[in-house]
């Protein structure tokens, strides 16, 4: 059960369209004049009314496509009467029947857990524990999860069984098949939380309580943050400022990408500048990270970065290799007397060593965070002030702006970069607002 079954999005409406089309076909198939011939079918000793057999069905479908037939069975609009009852269209004489509208996927959507619990309870009572494996699994899970309503569930199951006993055998078999087909199509997964109102409301209450305890930051500080970020990165935003030597998409010249490839002999100035924006920028650039490693080697603290890289590998690598990678990391970085021993505070160290006994993907997280912030607060600022970095910046190239093929009113990027080197980050926009008629866009 979802809170508001009527609050569905446009994609659900698309899906419903698909179901409705299938339903139109189903109704047409049952048309007394133009539809399929149906008659009483003998199933063992019982006679089932309004069923159809393979031959007739194929004849009808040949004009419409076997694929459509398979879809109709798969989504439960037509169900088989004979065992084994599955959602596959058999191209033989086995009898099929049209699903009653009560059990159409579209009318009953979404399938309710309470309903499913009642169905399983009924089956359990009727067949004395002859549930299928997956049904047993779900039965147990539901029994645990909605234990507080189990009396209601059993009561409903008994009522429905009592009512059905009063029907003819043929009708009983039909109802059984209908229900079974419906639940084959719509069975809920085991892990889905029981989305009943009680659970959702309790979740909302819990989330609100937690949220009330959050630390919030004043708007003025947060919003200043956005302004600063946008200003800092404005020069690096090709759509706003253009890029050097030219935007490949505009000039059809890939020089910009070649100059900014992962590893180049001489990185561009803008790229090296970005390394000073944040520690993450430095680490995410392959060349930046290499430079930083060189710097750390000079300071004899490169094991920090190596440790961080090894932890990243564990976090994002293959599951099967986690255990051996954790072993390696322990041997190289954490064991007493290790070759590249990293300096972690004792509390974190103890916690990590404890966790290593049962290695999992996130076992190194705390230690990794500790080392990350150590580098960020200590080594990184010193690197940015170091000669190594300053030389890199001085050596960095500023590509020549190539002539653009099309008219453009961008401020010349070359001019902008020159101004930036005078430590003035503010660039006066060359194009005045208002009377610009370039391109196909307008305010």
């Amino acid at each position, binding site marked *: 059960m979802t809170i508001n079954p009527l609050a569905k999005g446009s994609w659900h409406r698309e899906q419903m369209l698909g179901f409705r089309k299938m339903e139109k076909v189903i109704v047409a198939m049952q048309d007394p004049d133009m539809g399929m011939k149906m008659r009483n079918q003998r199933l063992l000793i019982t006679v089932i009314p309004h069923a159809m057999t393979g031959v007739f069905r194929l004849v009808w479908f040949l004009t419409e496509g076997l694929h459509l037939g398979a879809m109709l069975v798969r989504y439960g609009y037509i169900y088989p009467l004979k065992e084994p009852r599955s959602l596959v269209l058999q191209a033989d004489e086995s009898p099929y029947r049209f699903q009653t509208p009560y059990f159409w996927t579209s009318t009953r959507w979404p399938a309710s857990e309470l309903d499913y619990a009642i169905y399983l309870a009924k089956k359990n009572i009727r067949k004395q524990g002859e549930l299928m494996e997956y049904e047993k699994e779900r039965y147990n899970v539901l029994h645990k999860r909605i234990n507080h309503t189990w009396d209601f*569930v059993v009561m409903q199951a008994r009522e429905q069984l009592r*009512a059905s006993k009063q029907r003819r055998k043929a009708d009983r078999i039909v109802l059984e098949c209908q229900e079974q087909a419906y639940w084959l199509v719509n069975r809920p997964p085991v892990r889905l939380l029981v989305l009943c109102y009680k659970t959702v409301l309790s979740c909302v209450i819990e989330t609100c309580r937690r949220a009330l305890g959050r630390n919030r930051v004043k708007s003025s500080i947060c919003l200043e943050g956005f302004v600063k970020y946008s200003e800092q*990165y404005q020069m690096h935003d090709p759509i706003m400022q253009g890029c050097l030597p030219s935007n490949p*998409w505009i000039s059809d010249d890939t020089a910009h990408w070649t100059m900014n490839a992962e590893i180049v002999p001489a990185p561009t100035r803008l790229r090296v500048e970005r390394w000073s924006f944040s520690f993450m920028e430095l680490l995410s650039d392959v060349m930046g990270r290499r430079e930083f490693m060189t710097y750390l080697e000079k300071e004899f603290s490169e094991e920090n970065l190596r440790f961080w890289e090894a932890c990243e590998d564990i976090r994002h690598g293959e599951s099967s290799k986690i255990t051996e990678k954790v072993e390696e990391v322990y041997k190289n970085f954490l064991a007493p007397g290790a070759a590249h021993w990293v300096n972690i505070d004792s509390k974190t160290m103890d916690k990590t060593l404890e966790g290593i006994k049962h290695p999992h993907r996130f076992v190194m997280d705390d230690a990794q965070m500790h080392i990350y912030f150590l580098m960020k607060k200590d080594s990184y600022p010193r690197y940015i002030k170091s000669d190594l970095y300053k030389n890199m910046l001085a050596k960095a190239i500023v590509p020549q702006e190539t002539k653009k093929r099309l008219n453009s009113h961008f401020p010349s990027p070359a001019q902008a970069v020159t101004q930036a080197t005078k430590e003035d980050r*503010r660039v006066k926009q060359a194009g005045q607002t208002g009377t610009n008629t370039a391109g196909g866009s307008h305010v």
Partner: protein
Amino acid sequence: MCDQTFMAATFGPCDSCGKTGPLMNIYIKNEPVNYCSFCVEVMAYRGLQKGETLETLRQESDTLKKKLEEERGKLNDVELHQVAEKIEVVGALSIKTRRVLKGHGNKVLCMDWCKDKRRLVSSSQDGKVIVWDGFTLNKENGVSLPCTWVMACAYAPSGCAVALGDGLDNKCSVIPLSLDKNENLATKKKSVAMHTNYVSGCTFTSSDMQILTSSGDGSCALWDVESGQLLQSFHGHTADVLSLDLSPSETGNTFVSGGCDKKSCVWDMRSGQNIQTFENHESDINCVKYYPSGDAFASASDDATCRLYDLRADREVAIYQKDSIIFGASSVDFSLSGRLLFAGYNDYSINVWDVLKVTRVSILFGHENRISRVCVSPDGTALCSASWDHTLRIWA
């Protein structure tokens, strides 16, 4: 005419509360009645719990929500456009279509850029998935998955695989890409995620080894690609989840999702907990995207607005709307500096907003049907838009 062996009411007024809606047939004191799902649940709990009833829970939840709004408002000392007054106006932009990618036979539902800044993958309603070199317009790889609606696609960080989200099979699969154009990639498809309803969004985390999916069954989930194992599931949405985005921040452990319940939620990937929730939109949220710094995110909704939410201040800080915009927004993305917000709408246009001054800077025309997705390239040089008119356009 249809099989009416058992007459049963499926839709109509509830016997208990009178509201019209889908009905369940249950028995009360041996008599069959038709109740709506809320009343069935009230029935199921009656007499089994003392003190706590659904009504009191509802009241408590409403009170807490009000209190939360008050708390959020307390630290609101200035508006975004006020802070932005001192910065310069964005100069006139000259953005034009630079490439048109034709090749799909039906609505293009999703696209994603590769980290190499020029390749992209796109998926459409006819089950076709194409990997393009956007620069040369070359179709490098194609996969045909008949009888499925590929609603979501994502490029792996390594560039060696793509993930596809299925609208009919409810699965998310990963396909390794090969250099051999003639190889039938459909055979190498590997199912990773299994939901009970359509997969609306999928993305790789920082490596090829894990994918995050969102689904019409109201949940999001984190999967291990190698084993197909479910690593974590995220429950809290009360309707279909339509979109998700991973945080670019240095700790990289959170993601945001938006759905048909008009809520956007921020989740912790490790614990599965819902960290923050925002309920400001008036209709389905079609798309959510993080601000480049990771401190905020934007959402696009069927209520024709896009909104910016600040995560540290824990509130909505800007609404991007205009009286002349009446069609829903389907997708958003930020430019590299975060100053521009590109939003694709159902009226076939893309509006470019100044994020800080909360004004519209430009409109991009060109598509002949709804925009399903807009995405800025990894180095910010171009914007790609996918549309129901069977094409993709690259703007710069």
